[in-house]
């Protein structure tokens, strides 16, 4: 616990220092990176050592404002969520060393380092919070500091809009969360976490739903995700990496934490989470297919992955409620492992996206292309990330999805409620397929083929600090994918906190995971051998080079390449009722057609629905009420009289 606190202090110092040293740009950045790294590794050590040798009662608390208490507690769940925080955050800081390269913006950069440090610390505090007030406090600081990071580039109008949306969702979500706390307090009469499980069941459900609204809006659960595709593209890439990789997981953390604290009995909890997960998962990835801005796409893909995580958690909750221990254990384990995995590959992808935008000057994938040749490290690491996020073996995304599948299949065995697990399996399969199409689109259009614009052609490899971060993350993807055993072990240690999951013998999943590992190794082995064979087959043979065969077309141009839009169009069209795409086509006229255009724009259904059905009517009513204050003093006096009369009559 002391090591952990020490690490937080170090990170905070690393954030405060730049505020005073911003005049020396490079020194400031280097100092911040080093101190953050030291702090994070200390923290990582603390979290890991706790997971390996758990300490009883790792609690610390300070009295606050006479009546309250700031209480922190390290437990397995907290330690588990600390790992991505302390792993991704220093890498993001390292990445920003070369990403933040405008010396003129030195002061602004210093401020962004400060808020990053605050964000890291607040996330860490959130995971270890041991009463509702501490949780709320850390939650709000987290929202606030990330807001400042999002509006870093406030000159840009889009950024301001994104910041605004994020701000509203953050605050509204927080208020829902507070309402959930309030419901709990109204039953238990205390702000501490201890006696929450003693609440009556119906109140538990209300508290859970309220908390889910608040936490889910941070996590990006489908209809509450609206801020996400705006905020992630607007923020600088290291920030999006942290936000998408780590921060939105805090919403997931909250959901698990409150679920475990409430320890509810009904199946409804699992059902809610599962349905939310399916909607987020499928629609998230469909929208990701529909958008063609690299960071916006990644943001929607986060919605999808949150969906997958929720599927895992939902299975877990359903398993607990129905007494199906295998489903419970594997569901939770899969969900949690996916949290970890997603934090790795999503940060990796955002960093890759960042270096593309940095060097090619645009994030629109239809203006990119051919970057694999000019930016080999970024390209290769991005490819690793893309395969991982599609959940394909032998990378890490597959391991967690496998566990969720496994849990879901075991859910089928249970007689009555097999429909939801079955839908979960089908959703996972569809999500997997769609994710693969989405990321083949991203990799294929942005990194492969020929550059579509001048800028893309001129792009060059990014700075060494950025490359190191990406390579580390890409390697982690492979390591977790090929040797998942220790990670799965950790996850099951966390899950074993559940009484029902403890009945699953550890040998079951150790065997499973070893088999996955075996398949991965086998695959890599066979792949290696085949590649050697292929090399042998090619040795001494003519290897000609030439242009791509254009199927008889004599004057191919780079503009003829398939774009992301055309690639995704038919799939997006398949989901038409749930996704709205506007097509503008100028048509072909005359015998020898001139220039013609075709544009398609996908707008978020949830966004427009909330706008149309909630915001607009409310605003309409509010606008109608504006005559109240219309300047006439006589009317104002009449209000007073009216108030008196009403009060006297209502007495």
């Amino acid at each position: 616990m002391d090591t952990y606190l020490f690490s937080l202090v170090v990170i905070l110092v690393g954030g405060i220092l730049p505020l005073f040293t911003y005049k020396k740009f490079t020194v400031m950045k280097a100092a911040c990176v080093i101190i953050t790294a030291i702090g994070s590794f200390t923290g990582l050590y603390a979290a890991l050592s706790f997971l390996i040798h758990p300490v009883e009662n790792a609690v610390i608390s300070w009295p606050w404002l006479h009546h309250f208490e700031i209480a922190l507690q390290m437990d397995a769940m907290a330690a588990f969520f600390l790992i991505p925080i302390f792993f991704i955050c220093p890498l993001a800081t390292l990445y920003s060393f070369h990403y933040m390269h405008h010396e003129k913006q030195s002061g602004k950069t210093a401020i962004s380092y400060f808020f990053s440090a605050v964000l890291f610390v607040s996330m860490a505090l959130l995971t270890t919070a041991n009463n509702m007030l501490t949780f709320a406090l850390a939650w709000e600081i987290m929202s606030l500091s990330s807001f400042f990071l999002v509006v870093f580039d406030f000159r840009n109008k889009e950024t301001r809009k994104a910041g605004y949306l994020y701000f509203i969702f953050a605050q509204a979500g927080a208020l829902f969360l507070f309402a959930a706390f309030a419901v709990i307090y109204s039953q238990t009469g205390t702000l501490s976490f201890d006696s929450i499980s003693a609440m009556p069941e119906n109140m538990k459900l209300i508290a859970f739903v309220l908390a889910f609204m608040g936490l889910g809006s941070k996590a990006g659960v489908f209809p509450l995700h609206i801020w996400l595709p705006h905020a992630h593209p607007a923020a600088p890439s290291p920030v999006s990496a942290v936000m998408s990789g780590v921060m939105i997981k805090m919403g997931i953390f909250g959901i698990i934490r409150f679920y475990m604290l409430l320890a509810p009995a009904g199946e409804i909890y699992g059902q809610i989470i599962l349905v939310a997960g399916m909607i987020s998962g499928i629609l998230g990835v469909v929208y990701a297919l529909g958008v063609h801005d690299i960071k916006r796409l990644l943001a929607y893909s986060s919605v999808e992955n949150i969906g997958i995580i929720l599927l895992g958690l939902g299975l877990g909750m359903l398993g607990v409620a129905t007494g199906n221990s295998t489903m419970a254990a594997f569901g939770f384990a899969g969900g949690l492992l996916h949290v970890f995995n997603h934090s790795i590959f999503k940060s990796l992808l955002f960093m890759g996206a960042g270096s593309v935008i940095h060097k090619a000057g645009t994030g629109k994938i239809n203006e990119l292309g051919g970057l694999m040749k000019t930016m080999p490290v970024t390209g290769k690491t991005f490819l690793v990330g893309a395969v991982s996020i599609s959940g394909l073996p032998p990378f890490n995304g597959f391991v967690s999805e496998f566990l969720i599948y496994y849990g879901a299949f075991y859910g089928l065995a249970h007689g009555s409620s097999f429909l939801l697990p079955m839908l979960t399996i089908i959703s996972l399969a569809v999500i997997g397929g769609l994710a693969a199409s989405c990321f083949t689109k991203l990799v294929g259009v942005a990194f492969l083929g020929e550059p579509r614009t001048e800028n893309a052609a001129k792009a060059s490899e990014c700075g060494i600090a950025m490359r190191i971060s990406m390579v580390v993350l890409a390697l982690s993807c492979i390591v977790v994918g090929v040797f998942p055993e220790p990670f799965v072990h950790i996850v099951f240690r966390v899950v074993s906190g559940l009484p029902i999951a403890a009945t699953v013998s550890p040998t079951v999943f150790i065997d499973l995971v070893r088999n996955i590992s075996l398949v991965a190794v086998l695959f890599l082995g066979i792949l290696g051998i085949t590649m050697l064979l292929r090399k042998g087959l090619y040795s001494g043979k003519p290897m000609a080079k030439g242009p791509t065969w254009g199927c008889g077309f004599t004057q191919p141009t780079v503009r003829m390449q398939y774009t992301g839009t055309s690639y995704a169009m038919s799939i997006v069209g398949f989901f038409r009722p749930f996704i709205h795409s506007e097509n503008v086509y100028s048509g072909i006229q005359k015998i020898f057609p001139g220039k013609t255009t075709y544009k398609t724009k996908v707008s978020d259904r949830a966004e427009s629905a909330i706008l149309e059905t909630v915001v607009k009517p409310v605003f309409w009513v509010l606008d109608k009420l504006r005559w109240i204050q219309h300047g006439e003093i006589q009317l104002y006096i009449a209000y007073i009289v009216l108030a008196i009369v009403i009060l006297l009559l209502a007495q």
Partner: protein
Amino acid sequence: MLEHVFLLPFLIGVIVMFLPAQYGRAGLIIAAALHLGLTLMGWMGKLSPVTTGYFSTAPEGMLVLLVTSFIFMLIAIYTLSYLRETELRNEPVFIGCMLLFLATMSMVALADHIIVLWVAIEATTLVSAPLILLSHSKAALEATWKYVMICSVGIALALLGSFFIVLSMDLGGVRVPLTFTSLNTVAKSLDPVWLKAGFIFVMIGYGTKMGLAPMHTWLPDAHSQAPSPASALLSGVLLNCAFLGVYKVHTLMVNAGLGSYSSNVLMGFGLLSMFIAGVFIRNQHDYKRMLGYSSIENMGIIAFGIGVGGLASYGAMLHLIHHSLIKSSLFLSAGNIMLAYGTKLVNKVGKMPSFLPKTFGVFFAGFVGISGFPPFGMFLSEVLIIIGAFRAGHYWGIGFFIFCLILIFAAASRLVMRMCFGDTEETIQVEENLMRVAPSFLLLLTSIVLCVWMPAALYDTIQNAIAMIGGAFNG
């Protein structure tokens, strides 16, 4: 003799009106410092009122007095620098009225006698009217007219209300001095019908002054048209004084066993105020009016919190303190912005981080604070009110409360972000300077400090204040 706390500023105020401006400025600082000193001595228990039939050191009063004194001190410093940049037609009168304003507000804080309280509150209206009037624009005239008219009507009704309370005392056959302290002890034997009527009138009357909807109509006008130091005083301090009047009567109602009635009335007014504020903050074009409406909202929150009672009343008291600190800070920053851009229109202000970096920082921090984010204290108070309201079972009320908070936050953050980050064609007329940023910064810092560490004396005072309406933890 604690009465010096209002006698002294009164005296200095009257004197400076007849002296040249530079003496007035010195007098302002001296009076503010003396006031702060006296207040602190009062807090330490070294001073107590002599005329006990009229004045007392009630905990809620002392709380308001401290807040008043502290904020006034900082506003006085700001005013010095502000006056250098603006031309008021009659500066000595302005400064004199500020001091008289301080005097009357201190009197409100200490007043224990029903009629003295009323007189003091009425006096605050009268001495603050010139503060608004002195900008001499047509709009300022209009604002002053509305301010004086509406508040006078309200206060007249409050007098009637006070009279009804006295009547209830007569009908109940109670013979005690007309002070809240003594009335509270015999509250049970007061005639309930007339007490209730009295509460209604006093509530409406002081509620007008406090800015509760639908009697709030003067507030956005007055707060937007007054010179910024005066707006800060009006919003940050005066509203508390009016609240004190409402609170004292509510206490009486609680003690008389009519607490549930007055609580419901307070909650109703509170929610209505928040909603009305939400209606008008959206698409507001004038940022000082926006701040004015935000004051209405926050008064609504306080009224709601007090109405809910229990934990929420502690939240409401905290909210009172922090709202004063943050809102005055915001008005002072708004003053800087107005000096710099020469306009009160949201759409004409922009690019603040490059034009006014310090003011931007303080202004935005203030906005963050007023929206209830940590590390500012309003975070805690809002959480406590929400929690308290659920505890008390007001589910619909708190649902509406949260709806209003979201609405107002969404509306206000749009305006504030427009102001801070938007584009502008205006150029800066007056550069910011430290003297005008430091006070607002200090006010915010105080809010942060109070959220981290609260002196035991302050905590006990709040506890004592809410103990009278049965507010306590775990309530």
